[in-house]
C-alpha cells in the first residue's frame, strides 16, 4: 500500500479513537443518551457479556477502578490485553514490525470464549450471588 494512503488511514483511525476516548471521558454512558444502548439488552432485555463495558471504560478513564469493576469485571480484566493488542496492530500497520505478543494456545482461546458466554449467562441469573454480576450491582458494596 502507498505510504501516503497508509498515513491517512492510520491518522483517521487514531483521530476516531481519540474522539471516542474524549467523548467517553466527558459523557457518562450511564446517564447520557449519546451512546447507543446494547442491542441485545435493547431487543431481549437480557444482559450480554459486554453490557456495562462503555460505562466501565468511562469509569476507568476517570481512574475509578472499583466502579469500573462493578460495571463489567470481564471487560476490565480484558482491557489491558485489548489495549496492548491494539497498540501492536497499529505498530504493525505503521512500521511492519511485530511487537512481542502473547500467543495463546487454541484451547485457551476456546476457554476464553466459554468464559465469556458463561459470564453472559451468569449475570442474568436473578439470585444471589449471580445477581452481583449485573452491571452496577457491586456498587452497593
Amino acid at each position: 500500500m502507498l505510504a501516503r494512503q497508509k498515513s491517512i488511514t492510520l491518522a483517521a483511525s487514531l483521530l476516531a479513537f481519540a474522539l471516542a476516548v474524549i467523548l467517553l471521558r466527558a459523557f457518562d454512558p450511564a446517564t447520557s443518551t449519546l451512546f447507543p444502548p446494547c442491542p441485545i439488552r435493547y431487543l431481549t432485555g437480557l444482559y450480554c457479556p459486554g453490557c456495562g463495558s462503555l460505562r466501565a471504560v468511562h469509569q476507568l478513564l476517570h481512574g475509578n477502578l472499583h466502579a469500573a469493576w462493578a460495571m463489567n469485571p470481564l471487560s476490565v480484566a480484558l482491557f489491558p490485553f485489548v489495549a496492548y493488542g491494539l497498540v501492536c496492530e497499529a505498530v504493525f500497520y505503521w512500521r511492519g514490525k511485530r511487537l512481542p505478543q502473547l500467543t495463546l494456545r487454541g484451547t485457551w482461546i476456546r476457554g476464553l470464549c466459554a468464559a465469556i458466554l458463561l459470564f453472559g449467562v451468569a449475570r442474568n441469573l436473578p439470585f444471589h450471588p449471580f445477581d452481583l454480576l449485573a452491571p452496577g450491582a457491586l456498587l452497593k458494596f
Partner: protein
Amino acid sequence: MTFCPQCGTSNVDNAIVCAQCGRNLQPAAQVPPLQAPGTVIPAPGAAIQNYLVYAILTTVFCCLPTGIPAIIYASQVNTKLQLGDAAGAQAASNNARMWSWISFGLGLAMFLCYGLVMALGIFGSLHRR
C-alpha cells in the same frame, strides 16, 4: 527468434530444442498450482494473524454476538499453527477476519441508525415547539 539460454545460439521461434546444443527450448510444462487460484500463499515465516483482539473488542466492548465466531476461528488459527497446518490456519484466519469485519460493519450500522434516530428525535422536538 529465440536464443538458447545455454549456448546463446539463435533458433527459430517455435524450436523445441536448440539446433546447436540440443537444450530443450520449450517452456517447462505447466505445473498445476497446489492451491486454488485467488488464495493468498503466505510468505514463509510470515505470521498468520488470528484477529483475536478485534474479536474480543466486538464481543465484549460492542455487545455483538458476531464476535463469537471470530473468537472460535481465532482459536482454530492457533490450533492449526501448532499442528503445522499453515493452509488450514490461513483459511481460519480469513474467516476470523471476515467475522471481525462483519462485526465492525454491524456495529457501525447500528451506531449510525441510533445517531439518525436521536437526531430525528431532537429535530422533531425542536419542530414541535
